[in-house]
């Protein structure tokens, strides 16, 4: 780095408010009543809901791209009295959801961590690339600017370095910032037109000067300390090896039964995971009108593989959990060349019975139980 472009933290709130005038700004907001942090719009920030950029959010930001529940379209059955044997279905344009208007609003996600941006890549591979793309997802993604802040603080359940990530990984962010005490320094900036436009419009908040050698050393120190702390939370996992191990140990039913005895097969880990992508599409109708929606689904559910005949290939909890682990560390890796676990540790934080995905993977890999 030759120049140091930075914004003073004391000007951050004004910068975000100015940004909120042209874009919808989303950032981690802490609810003071119980202390949980989630990604919310800047509009709800007040005395009881404060901005907190240091701690991890409870739920992941995937709901900003892949909402928990989204209406695809509305329909209405129409009958003509003169032709009673014909039923017409008409798609409605109703005011409550005009998808393209909502999805094409410009958004800025501020304060997202590098592990979550790696998960956005996981979502891109499923919804945004290949032959079948989700047009609403593509539109949302094109109109979103991701401003990520690297992790100076590593928590005991973080393990991004073990799965190929890094606390200062900015490849999937549009702007990558480093927290250097009183200032947030731009470490990486994408060359896209809309990023240049954003920086130009907010130029009065950012200062620029030549970097001095002390600052260069400090940046390197921040990065290497975080990397070291994160690597001490778990061993490094080579993606190729883990996929093979999972494949080999698939039929060891007793082992899988023993390590998943605690699991109660709820959806807590699946729904807070930034990389879990399963969804369900259903139609709902009242009278002659109805709507088709897309919502989250969870593979640890008994109903997930229940067939119309009544047979269920994944009847027991250990089979469903085995599938979930294989999905993340084996199947998706083989298909998309990307591990679908980014090491954020949210599943460990939220699990009612304390299932630790690191322990599970370790059990599977080790030769003894």
């Amino acid at each position: 780095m030759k120049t140091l472009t930075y914004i003073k933290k004391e000007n951050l709130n004004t910068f975000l408010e100015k940004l909120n005038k042209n874009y919808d700004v989303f950032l981690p907001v802490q609810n003071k009543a119980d202390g949980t942090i989630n990604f919310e719009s800047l509009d709800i920030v007040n005395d009881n809901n404060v901005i907190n950029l240091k701690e991890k959010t409870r739920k992941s930001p995937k709901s900003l791209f892949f909402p928990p529940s989204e209406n695809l379209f509305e329909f209405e059955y129409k009958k003509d009295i003169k032709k009673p044997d014909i039923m017409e279905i008409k798609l409605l344009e109703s005011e409550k959801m005009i998808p393209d208007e909502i999805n094409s609003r410009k958004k800025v996600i501020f304060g997202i961590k590098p592990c979550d941006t790696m998960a956005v890549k996981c979502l891109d591979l499923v919804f945004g690339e290949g032959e079948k793309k989700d047009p609403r997802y593509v539109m949302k993604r094109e109109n979103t600017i991701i401003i990520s802040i690297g992790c100076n603080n590593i928590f005991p359940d973080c393990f991004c370095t073990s799965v190929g990530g890094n606390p200062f990984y900015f490849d999937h962010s549009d702007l990558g910032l480093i927290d250097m005490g009183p200032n947030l320094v731009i470490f990486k900036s994408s060359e896209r037109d809309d990023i240049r436009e954003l920086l130009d419009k907010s130029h009065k908040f950012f200062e620029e000067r030549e970097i001095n050698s002390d600052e260069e050393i400090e940046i390197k120190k921040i990065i290497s300390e975080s990397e070291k702390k994160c690597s001490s939370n778990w061993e490094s996992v080579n993606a190729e090896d883990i996929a093979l191990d999972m494949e080999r140990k698939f039929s060891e039913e007793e082992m899988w039964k023993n390590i998943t005895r605690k699991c109660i097969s709820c959806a807590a880990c699946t729904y807070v995971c930034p990389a879990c992508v399963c969804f369900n599409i259903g139609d709902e109708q009242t009278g002659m009108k109805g709507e088709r929606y897309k919502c989250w689904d969870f593979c640890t559910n008994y109903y997930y593989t229940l067939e119309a005949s009544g047979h269920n290939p994944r009847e027991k909890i250990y089979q469903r959990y085995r599938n979930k682990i294989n999905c993340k560390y084996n199947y998706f890796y083989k298909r998309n060349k990307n591990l679908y676990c980014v090491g954020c540790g949210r599943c460990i934080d939220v699990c009612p019975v304390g299932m630790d995905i690191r322990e599970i993977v370790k059990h599977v890999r080790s030769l003894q139980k």
Partner: protein
Amino acid sequence: MQQENSVEKKLKERIRDVFDDFELVIGYSQSKIPLKVNPLFIQRKEEIDDLIFNNLCINNLATYSYFLSNELKGKIGIVLKPCDTRSITQLISEELLNKDRVKSIVVGCAGILDYKKIVKEIGGLKIISADIKDEHIRIDTIDENFTLKAKNFYADKCYTCNIYDNPPYYDEFIENDSKLNIEPRKEYEDLDEFEKLSLEEINSFWDLQFSNCIRCYACRNICPLEVCRDKCIAQLDVPHWQSQKINAVEGKFFQLIRAFHLAGRCTECGECERVCPANIQLLKLMKKINKDVLKLFNYRPGFNLDEKPPLLTFKNVEKNIKEEELI
């Protein structure tokens, strides 16, 4: 984190003595996450050494009783606190559990600490490490350190408990030298306060609470009495009770389904509220129905093996029900 205390020693000895009768024993063990414990499934004698029992053991291990007793053929022993024994008793009185198959190893309780209350007190910060010594909890977070007085952070149910050293039902009882020592509170006090609010306030309270619900079903799956988790009507298309959409209205309706499924059966263990990722105050609904069942039918779930739950029976003349006349 802590040294073995005397009740742990007694518990381990007792289980070693009776271990050969059991196919599986469920207890508590240390967790890597500070201030939490893990359920431990013991199938070999060596694993008994990992057992612990202290004031962090908040999990209700009776959740595993129904499903394991259907899966395994032999006897199952479960380490329980007296409040958890109520769940086992309720299941036995409803004939969902065979009392010869599941044996309760009840340990006298000195109260348990509520993790969520502690996290709320330190402002929601992530706990890096923690230690409990001499009635004080020492907590380290990224920037700050805290020292809290343990007796202010006990679970709500501990303040109204009077069975901590004489459980309603047990197969083995391990006495604890330390006893529960906190100021008792009146039963259903917080609920009485809540009922005094106006309808608009109550509605906006629930709207705010359920806005974060993600329908993860953790509340239903952790409940010892919800044995219907693989056949839940909330996930069926026919009959269509609920939409699968994830929003506040559906989240609230799911809790109403749960409240009526547990009417007159809920033993108020508080697990549903503990596991909710969105921190919703679910227990208020169950407590309200329990309060009315107590008032109308003089019945407390989980105390008496032979008493039939009131909503499964009836009387010709109901003394306490005052019906209204609309003419």
